[in-house]
């Protein structure tokens, strides 16, 4: 019997010359991506894991057995209800936004498995597709099961099938990134930017917080998923290196575009969880500190090693690191009935911690939370809508998230007119991406334009129930009904 080293290279590198079709027909640019290069330019494509299918199945089986044992021991509903209430909201946010996005990533990986330009890439993408299916099934199975005890967990499945504003934004991102990207753009955007750059934040850094909170089930789930991500993320770098060699401007564009888009998503999903929904006593570091450790240092080092530059908007990004997730969280709290998880008001100790972690930006947010707190002081416990916004909020025409760019002192929203149509963007990078690919994004209507066109109701409660798909039982509330031990209530029932 042949040893592994004797057959693996031949099995991985199984490319051949076509006799009755052209290479361009087998790998058309529309599906394989640009720059279109003959296979000769891809033949040295390589990645470090070099996993065979047998090894893959054996390894995944062990991981699944280990996770099943953990779930058996500590994954029962009563184990979840012991967790702090705000942390359960972090789980609901994760459960709705990521597992079904991973399912969409199966498609992106399968496109790589068919249209990737080298056989070793295609093999890895096949394993990547299997990984993503696993990353869908594990959290769907463990978290949707909690719906019997808490209806908000129904959004684990419901989210992407709704017109909730967060779902519209997430679909706008993931449909492009995972479902429609060609093999090259998918590899650079998903494997290099998203998985090498950002998923460490959710799957490693947040996993360490899960450990501190005592949520061992979520911790083990994230760890198990991340071990797969670390392998198939390796597809990205060699693809990027080849694109850079032949079209450096396009390589830089892909990085700059997808770094910004990924940043906005993780600022909301991970930023909320780390700086607001993790109980203060369990916070080891701030979202910004985790970003610096897990994303910035490594990402900048990897692109500079290739000869690429930081994105042109780097200063804007560094400012956003101090502000963006705080801007969106304060906005989301005051429109919490528009989401499927509960939010909390940061109390005096949390505000002191946030000031220490964000000394350059916290003042503006502290004033907002002081005002929110004073409204709760005048309001009966549980009277959520007395401390809730009623005006229609506004959305960016690129990312579809709320117009919460910049700082409380200066919102960075920027407008543009194209073909007599008016557009508005949360930031210059969103505007730049939109204008580079206007034919792709120009006809997508944000929630405001849907309301003005009569597609969505203007009345807030009707918008929540008829369009966003929420009900009183499922829409977000203050996690404690405004009943905080530190809050001096001037009015009593």
């Amino acid at each position: 019997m042949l040893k592994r080293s004797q057959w693996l290279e031949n099995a991985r590198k199984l490319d051949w010359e076509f006799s009755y079709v052209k290479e361009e027909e087998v790998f058309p640019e529309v599906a394989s991506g640009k720059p279109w290069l003959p296979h000769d330019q891809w033949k040295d494509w390589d990645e470090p894991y070099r996993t065979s299918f047998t090894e893959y199945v054996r390894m995944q089986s062990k991981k699944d057995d280990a996770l099943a044992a953990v779930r058996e021991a500590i994954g029962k509903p009563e184990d979840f209800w012991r967790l702090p209430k705000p942390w359960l909201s972090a789980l609901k946010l994760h459960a709705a936004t990521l597992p079904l996005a991973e399912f969409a990533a199966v498609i992106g990986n399968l496109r790589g498995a068919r249209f990737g330009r080298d056989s070793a890439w295609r093999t890895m993408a096949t394993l990547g597709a299997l990984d993503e299916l696993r990353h869908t099934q594990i959290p769907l199975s463990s978290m949707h099961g909690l719906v019997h005890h808490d209806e908000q967990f129904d959004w684990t499945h419901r989210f992407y099938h709704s017109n909730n504003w967060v779902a519209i934004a997430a679909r706008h991102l993931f449909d492009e990134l995972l479902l429609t990207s060609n093999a090259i753009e998918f590899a650079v955007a998903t494997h290099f930017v998203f998985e090498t750059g950002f998923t460490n934040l959710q799957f490693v850094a947040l996993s360490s917080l899960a450990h501190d909170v005592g949520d061992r089930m979520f911790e083990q789930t994230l760890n198990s998923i991340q071990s797969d991500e670390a392998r198939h993320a390796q597809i990205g770098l060699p693809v990027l290196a080849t694109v850079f060699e032949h079209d450096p401007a396009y390589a830089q564009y892909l990085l700059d575009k997808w770094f910004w888009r990924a940043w906005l998503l993780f600022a909301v999903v991970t930023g909320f969880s780390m700086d607001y929904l993790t109980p203060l006593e369990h916070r080891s570091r701030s979202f910004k500190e985790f970003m610096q450790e897990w994303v910035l240092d490594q990402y900048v080092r990897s692109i500079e090693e290739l000869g690429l530059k930081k994105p042109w908007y780097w200063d804007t990004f560094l400012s956003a690191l101090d502000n963006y997730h705080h801007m969106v969280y304060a906005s989301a709290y005051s429109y919490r009935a528009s989401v499927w998880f509960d939010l909390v008001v940061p109390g005096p100790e949390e505000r002191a911690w946030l000031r220490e972690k964000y000394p350059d930006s916290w003042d503006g947010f502290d004033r907002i939370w002081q005002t929110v707190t004073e409204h709760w002081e005048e309001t009966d416990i549980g009277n959520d809508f007395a401390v809730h916004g009623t005006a229609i909020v506004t959305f960016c025409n690129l990312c579809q998230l709320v117009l919460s760019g910049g700082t409380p002192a200066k919102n960075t929203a920027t407008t543009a007119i194209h073909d007599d149509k008016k557009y508005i963007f949360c930031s210059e990078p969103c505007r730049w991406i939109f204008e580079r690919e206007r034919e792709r994004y120009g006809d997508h209507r944000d929630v405001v334009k849907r309301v003005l066109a009569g597609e969505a109701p203007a009345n807030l409660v009707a918008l929540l129930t008829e369009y966003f798909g929420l009900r009183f039982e499922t829409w977000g509330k203050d996690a404690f009904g405004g009943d905080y031990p530190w809050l001096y209530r001037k009015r009593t029932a």
Partner: protein
Amino acid sequence: MIPLYGFLEGDSIGLLVLADENDTAADLAEKLQSAARIRVKAEAKMKVVYQGVMIASHTTVAEAQMGALDRFDVIKGELR
């Protein structure tokens, strides 16, 4: 009604303000502050900026030639 994007200094989000063409700059400032009151305390002295220029308090939406989906800002300062 004319839908406008309003941005209030001190706030975390832009809001849609439904304006009448006869609304003055003072009316716009009041409407936006009222819509944002959960997060930002209303102040008496605020001015309206449209296309980079401060609008006098008595100037109407029509006179300022504000159109649907235009942006205005309400910032701290005396409304003249």
